[in-house]
């Protein structure tokens, strides 16, 4: 009996300790793509600064924008920047104060395919990719594909397009790229986290697209670079704006960001698909944290500012271990200045 009482006292003491650890809780929600690096960052930051506890829910970019606009979370995260309408809605709901975009890491989409008999990496021109996804290039031996793959024995088989069925930042990057390289895509389909696909079948998540491509002969799809790297999936090169065929890797993605950095707007809402630069991989993108400009709670404001500083310095060193591409130096410097705009 005594032991039970002792145990109970011990448990109570432990509970009290946990409760006494009243770290300031800062809630965020949004994009799923950067979730692995965010959860690592928030964890490391908490051990270094036990006073702050960041809690991040990876509910999707759309839900993240919605929740930060409605004020149910302290910050949001998105794979595609908020559009002007969304910014205006935010301002209307927050007495005219706005929301700031902070790029955190970079990602990229890669074309992956399954053609019986073809083992090497294929080269894709922007015209070929747009044609395939518009449903106009229908055979693998079409001159649009064969022209940039001399010596590869492409079959006369029907191309089966696989796209994402769930709304996702991956689709946003892909359709943003196609909108830039094809006017027809821009007017007919447009860019977004979900679009009205002209052709093909939908798979849920990167794994759904990958699964369909793997099991369907003559299929082509697109997945996140990280997913392709971690699962050893072969993928093709894409011709960039300088005319070079570039295979996506961490360096070529950072190069795309560096190419775009010179013309980086002050609000960081920039698309870096089809970016200039010899080595730039054209289907790359930033992912952003969405931070309200004005905080009622000074403690939360300081916590977030502190975290952003840390993320831009120490935080950037740990991203490549998780297959994300680092921010280029110019962007980091610019963001450090922008932190001062948070009030």
């Amino acid at each position, binding site marked *: 009996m005594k032991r039970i009482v002792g145990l109970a006292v011990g448990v109570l003491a432990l509970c009290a300790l946990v409760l006494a650890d009243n770290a300031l809780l800062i809630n965020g929600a949004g994009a799923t793509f950067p979730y692995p690096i965010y959860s690592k960052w928030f964890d490391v930051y908490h051990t270094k600064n036990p006073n702050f506890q960041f809690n991040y829910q990876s509910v999707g970019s*759309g839900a993240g924008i919605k929740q930060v606009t409605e004020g149910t979370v302290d910050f949001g995260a998105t794979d595609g920047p908020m559009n002007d309408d969304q910014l205006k809605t935010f301002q209307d709901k927050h007495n005219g104060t706005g929301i700031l975009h902070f790029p955190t890491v970079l990602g990229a989409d890669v074309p992956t395919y399954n053609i019986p008999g073809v083992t090497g990496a294929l080269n894709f021109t922007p015209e070929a990719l747009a044609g395939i996804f518009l449903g106009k290039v229908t055979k693998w031996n079409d001159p649009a594909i064969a022209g940039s793959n001399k010596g590869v024995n492409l079959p006369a088989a029907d191309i089966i397009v696989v796209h994402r069925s*769930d*709304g996702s930042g991956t689709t946003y990057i892909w359709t943003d790229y196609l909108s830039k390289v094809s006017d027809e895509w821009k007017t007919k389909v*447009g860019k977004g986290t979900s*679009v009205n696909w002209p052709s093909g079948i939908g798979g*849920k998540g990167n794994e759904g697209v990958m699964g369909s491509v793997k099991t369907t002969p003559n299929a082509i799809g697109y997945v996140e670079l990280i997913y392709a790297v971690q699962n050893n999936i072969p993928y093709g090169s894409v011709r960039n704006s300088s005319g070079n065929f570039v295979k996506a890797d961490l360096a070529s993605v950072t190069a795309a960001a560096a190419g775009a950095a010179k013309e980086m707007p002050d609000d960081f809402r920039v698309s870096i698909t089809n970016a200039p630069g010899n080595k730039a991989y054209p289907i790359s993108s930033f992912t952003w944290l969405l931070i309200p400009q004005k905080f009622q709670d000074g403690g939360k404001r300081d916590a977030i500012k502190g975290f952003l500083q840390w993320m831009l310095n120490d935080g950037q060193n740990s991203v490549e271990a998780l297959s994300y591409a680092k921010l280029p130096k110019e962007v980091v410097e610019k963001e450090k200045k922008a932190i001062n705009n948070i009030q």
Partner: protein
Amino acid sequence: MATTTTTLKGAGPVSGSRSFFLKLRDGDEIARLVTLVFATTVVLITAALVWELWVNSALPRQKFGFHFFVTSVWDPIMDQFGALPFIYGTMVTSAVALLVAVPLGIGAAIFLAELAPPRVSDTLQFFIDLLAAVPSVIYGLLGVFIVVPLMRTVIYPALNKPFGYLPIFKGPSYGVGFMTAGIVLAIMVIPYIISVSREVLLSVPRDQREAALALGSTRWESTWKVVVPFAKTGIMGSIFLALARALGETMAVTMVIGNTPKIAASLFAPGYSIAAVIANEFTEATGDLYLQSLIALGLVLFLLTFILNGLARILIVLTTQKGSEVGG
């Protein structure tokens, strides 16, 4: 005074003469009230559900009105939303599922209840219950890795070559599509049909069978002409339970249906279902009209389930009346 009033009011049954407090003390009244509350919550939850769906789908109702049900463009970029391909996909996959599952399920139930030795029947029942408890994502994986390749390499050639002139078997096959989704759904709902139908068949009184046998019928005649008709209502119930599951299934369907909002006559074509599109697009739905259109789809699914359930009830009433007429 109070007692007098009560006696006067409850002039009918004897138990009515007992005072309310007396009944309360005995526990009858408590039990009645508690169970009444439980029963009411079901109604309340349903009402709250419809209310929420209705209120949160006002925008598409204003913008598209009835056109929401009959147009087939689903374009989040241009803000055009039509529910028809999803309604079509939901109904076609459910219909395929029932076409496959009902004969198989009822046949298996008859074997288990009437023909198999009790030990075999109980063992098999254990496995069937196990199947009913498997999470739907597992069935989805089964679909992706087994049914989809099987569809492309075996079922499609077998049906397309001889019957390719029929619209429902025309066109190319990607492996995924209405038929694949229907078959995966069939696998998922068969355990429900077997389990419930077997219980119902087992509960048919023994004298029914004995009477039939005594009149000189064979084992199969007594089963098919006496036992099964006796259990018809219950078997119908099992089918409707299966239908409800098929209509609302999300995960397994989205993994094998192809997720393409198009209406195609061919069962091999990829399609989309209501539950699947909601699950796929809800988290990333930006813009009020888009989000509310998805909620409106939820309302449509609710209505569809409601209508089909209503039709099912009517069917039960009609067939049982017919059955009793024949029996009489």
